[in-house]
């Protein structure tokens, strides 16, 4: 029986026509022409409907790439702009940067394929010695990014990636290989306007006793989704994934993660916190899969969200799938409102209601940032959160 032909919407057609004539671009085009873009009928996208968001076409890219904060003045900046890839700042020994026109796709799923399809080439970073200078990946509005990052055994790198478009479609694909006993610390920031569509896909493989630490802050956009897939392949490999999302207006942010424990003695720590108001929508999908070989796995996942107004919506899907018998796995998921008693207590001390709310939300959310070792980045993220709170509570 022949499959029914997928009828593409005008926006989908336009998107597919915008894909470049590269190998990955053609592959993406062929795939989506046959399957269509992910939509609410696809389980993994039931709360983040890509097709619907693109139905009317894509707004012209707008906004800035963002300023590099004071605390990262020493960093090496990699700019991904519509006109191409650029470097700014000093590069230290032990970091090799190349570009590749054609690379096999390591990530999985439609957004990985789409991001690979849009990127004209991949930038490959090889870390052969630990880097004290952070590396910033700056995604410009409307630009695609594809980065392959390889950390050799025992090396360490701090990576910051930002996507701040106020309009247009921006995509990012990060394929990361963390060698034995190597460590990647990643801080990511997404802040979009009401016409911004932002998709990122991060695929990480971690070898023996390697570590992946990631802390993300998202403010959402018309549609923003950050996907993370971590494969803890080696023995004693670990990951820490923290995320905060602060959404107002009609912002949509989706944090979707999948961690696979493939080797024994691995550890996962996940903490996600969100605060939403107006008609904003937050999506959290977190899966931890423990394979049969991954004995003595210690995995914890927590997602807690605060609803600050009635019209906001949170969709959460925590999942544990365990095939090993000697493991410790726990997860918690709560969605609630601000504590009225705490609010009254603060007001009785003279703190006006709006300020008391802002203090409580800030305290709630910033727990996510406690894991940030870089003091400057921690202050930067905390300040962004505070600015959002002040703007929304006034």
């Amino acid at each position: 029986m022949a499959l029914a032909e997928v009828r593409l919407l005008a926006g989908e057609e336009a998107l597919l026509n915008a894909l470049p004539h590269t190998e990955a671009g053609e592959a993406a085009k062929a795939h989506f022409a046959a399957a269509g873009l992910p939509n609410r009928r696809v389980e993994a996208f039931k709360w983040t409907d890509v097709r619907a968001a693109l139905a009317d076409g894509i707004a012209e890219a707008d906004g800035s790439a963002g300023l590099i904060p004071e605390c990262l003045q020493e960093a090496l900046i990699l700019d991904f702009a519509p006109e191409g890839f650029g470097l700014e700042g000093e590069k230290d020994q032990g970091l090799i940067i190349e570009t590749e026109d054609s690379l096999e796709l390591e990530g999985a799923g439609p957004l990985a394929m789409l991001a690979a399809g849009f990127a004209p080439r991949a930038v490959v970073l090889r870390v052969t010695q630990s880097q004290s200078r952070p590396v910033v990946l700056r995604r410009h509005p409307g630009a695609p990014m594809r980065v392959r990052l390889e950390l050799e055994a025992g090396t360490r790198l701090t990576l910051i990636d930002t996507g701040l478009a106020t309009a247009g479609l921006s995509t990012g694909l990060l394929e990361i290989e963390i060698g034995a006993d190597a460590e990647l610390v990643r801080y990511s920031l997404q802040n979009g306007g009401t016409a911004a569509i932002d998709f990122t896909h991060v695929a990480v493989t971690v070898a023996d006793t390697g570590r992946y630490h990631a802390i993300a802050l998202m403010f959402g956009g018309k549609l923003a989704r950050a996907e993370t897939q971590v494969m803890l392949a080696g023995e004693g490999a670990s990951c820490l994934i923290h995320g905060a999302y602060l959404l107002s207006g009609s912002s949509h942010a989706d944090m979707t993660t999948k961690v696979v424990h493939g080797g024994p003695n691995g550890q996962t720590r996940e903490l996600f916190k969100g605060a939403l108001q107006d008609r904003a929508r937050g999506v959290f999908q977190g899966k931890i899969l423990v394979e049969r070989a991954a004995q003595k796995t210690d995995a914890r996942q927590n997602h807690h969200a605060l609803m600050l107004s009635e019209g906001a919506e949170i969709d959460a899907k925590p999942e544990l799938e365990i095939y090993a018998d000697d493991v410790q796995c726990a997860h918690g998921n709560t969605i609630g409102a601000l504590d009225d008693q705490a609010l009254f207590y603060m007001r009785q001390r003279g703190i006006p209601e709006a300020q008391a709310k802002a203090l409580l939300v800030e305290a709630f959310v910033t727990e996510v940032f406690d894991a940030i070792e870089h003091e400057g980045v921690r202050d930067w993220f905390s300040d962004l959160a505070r600015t959002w709170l002040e703007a929304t509570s006034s």
Partner: protein
Amino acid sequence: MLNINNLQVEVGGTPIIKGLTLQVPAGEVHAIMGPNGAGKSTLSYALTGRDGYEVVGGTATLNGEDLLELAPEERAAKGLFLSFQYPLEIPGVPTLTFLRTALNAQRKARDEAEISVPDFMKLSRDVAKKLGVTPEMMKRPLNVGFSGGEKKRMEIYQMALLDPRFMILDETDSGLDIDALKVVSEGVNALRGPDKGMLVITHYQRLLDHIKPDRVHVLAGGRIVDSGGPELALALEADGYDRYKDAA
């Protein structure tokens, strides 16, 4: 100073305070005693403006100003302070940040200049020393992980720092051992003054050995059913509240 006239309060549609009249002149400390369920905590919440404590009749003024029309934070800025029976834990908010925010918010509401950080630090240290509040306690998130006694001490510490004009102490003695009770009582007594008033709500007479009241009132069934001097508290300690059963 505090003037309550025929106050009626409902909680969830149920009348709890049923026509309470009470005057506390400046410079005086009045105690309110009563059995469990008499409406003691309801009175303190109604006066401070907590949601869900609906005033359906009567008046309450502080220095002639109507309290009942004001938001809780506005009542606080007018100098009304409630020491909670069960102080809340506020995770993630450092005690000193909380207190400086509260103090400056009150000052702003009164059109006074904000206190500078160095001045605040000095003030907070001076007050802390007197009340046995350690620097460690001040650095922690407010009340998080504190014992019952520490929380009560922290309430009095906040009270001393914010320097209110009228103080309501709701069961401040509960959860305190005798040493902590002495420290807390000394702290409270230091805040007495000719232009200040205090309402001490307690189930037991023990606290009143340390904080000597000018007047004692018995609250039962939502009304003041008896009033007298300090000797009334001693009589209650000996005889219990049974004789007020019918009065309510």
